[in-house]
């Protein structure tokens, strides 16, 4: 299938996803379930990764800025800006593409091959809307909180690294992470996160929804969902950075 054909099917699927729900109450309940499933269940992995990456960024910056001409508080500033501008949005987005994206594609793909999606259609339910819309909304609502958690925990990880290794005085680190703070960087990261959340959920759901065959194809669709959403995240990163920071 060529690019235009795939893109066309994706757009048609989205038009079905955002069609009027059969019953709003049920969709709201589903969205709350998905917030727990896709959002709350990802908090742990985001905290673990962010704390270590925050620590590593701080230590690497310290070892690369050996010059006595450079004030030590710049290490805190660099760690903060790296976390705010790129890591907490894009890197966490890529990690979630792997965790959440494969979960969505395999769940919907399995429902397709076991005829559960046909069963929904037979009941007169818009299966695309019922299965996909709550996931998209849940991720777009909750992922910004994951990004904020990642920023906060990443900075704490850097502080731990400084505390444990003595790479620089903690007062310099604390001063550095507050120095020349640009609030717009947080807005920029949150906007990126919302766009990534849409990409991860819709692209993975697309590959799961149109799967044909058996378990092998579900696995393949899951991989495709992760790969293509990761590529699209990087592309969106480039475009949004140019639009918002240039």
């Amino acid at each position, binding site marked *: 299938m060529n690019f235009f054909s795939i893109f066309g099917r994706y757009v048609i699927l989205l038009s079905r996803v955002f069609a009027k729900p*059969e*019953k709003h109450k*049920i969709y709201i309940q589903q969205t709350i379930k998905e917030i727990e499933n896709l959002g709350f269940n990802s908090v742990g992995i985001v905290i673990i990764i962010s704390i270590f990456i925050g620590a590593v960024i701080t230590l690497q910056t310290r070892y690369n800025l050996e010059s006595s001409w450079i004030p030590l508080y710049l290490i805190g500033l660099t760690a903060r800006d790296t976390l705010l501008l790129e890591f907490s949005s894009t890197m966490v987005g890529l990690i979630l593409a792997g965790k959440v994206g494969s979960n969505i594609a395999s769940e919907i793909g399995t429902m397709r091959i*076991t*005829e559960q999606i046909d069963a929904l259609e*037979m009941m*007169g339910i818009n299966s695309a809307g019922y299965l996909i819309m709550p996931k998209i909304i849940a991720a777009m609502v909750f992922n910004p909180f994951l990004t904020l958690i990642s920023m906060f925990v990443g900075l704490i990880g850097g502080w731990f690294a400084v505390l444990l290794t003595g790479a620089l005085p903690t007062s310099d680190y604390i001063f550095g992470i507050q120095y020349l703070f640009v609030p717009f960087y947080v807005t920029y990261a949150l906007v990126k996160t919302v766009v990534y959340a849409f990409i991860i959920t819709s692209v993975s759901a697309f590959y799961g929804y149109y799967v044909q065959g058996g378990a092998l194809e579900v696995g393949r669709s899951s991989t495709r969902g992760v790969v293509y959403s990761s590529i699209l995240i990087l592309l969106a990163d480039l475009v949004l950075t140019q639009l918002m920071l240039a």
Partner: protein
Amino acid sequence: MIRVEHLVKAFNETTVLEDVSVTFEKGKTNLIIGRSGSGKTVFMKCLVGLHEVDNGAIYYNDRNFVKMDFNERKQIRREIGMLFQGSALFDSLTVEENVMFPLNMFTNMSLHEKQERTNMCLSRVALTDSNKLYPGELSGGMKKRVAIARAIVENPRYLFCDEPNSGLDPKTALVIDDLISEITHEYDITTVINTHDMNSVMEIGEKVVFIHDGRKGWEGTREDILDSDDENLNDFVFASNLAKKIKEYSSAAAPKK
């Protein structure tokens, strides 16, 4: 009643169904039989709109399903119950939630009313103590029964069953067959069953349609099958040694003219 007229369905260059016309009668168990790959599953999926037809018409009590848009079809689909080959129960929901699902989506019944209706349907299929179990905890026969309960929970006018006995032992298959037949007569609905199980045909086949190479090969009752001289039908029906022996026995036992 469901009336099918000159149905044609092709996938790319391959014609799977060619000029199939048949009527499925109300209050009867109508069976579609045929070899694997003969087109009977595609035929059933066309009947319920899971495949779009290329030509022809499908009338549900004089309403042409083929010409309807998505929303019009929704109305018809609410009158349809369907039992899928693999049961198609929702893995994340309990037995009770599965059966209650259509009621949650389409009715404004109170929780008490929904539970009452759900329990009534579950007791109708003889599953009274499995409400809180998940599909993964059920046997194949129990899954089919839950799927039947879900199919009838909204009082359908039409019931479609795709290979209801696949993967079941002969005794459980018989139970499922009897259940479908009883429900058909009890609720006076139009039931269409897709099968290649000759036991089912002989047990509950009030009307039998034989699909051969995408065409209607034969049509009649279960009683007519044994006397049919249709070569393709005989090839299919008497493929097993057991069936051959039954035919020999019934021919020998029949009074000579």
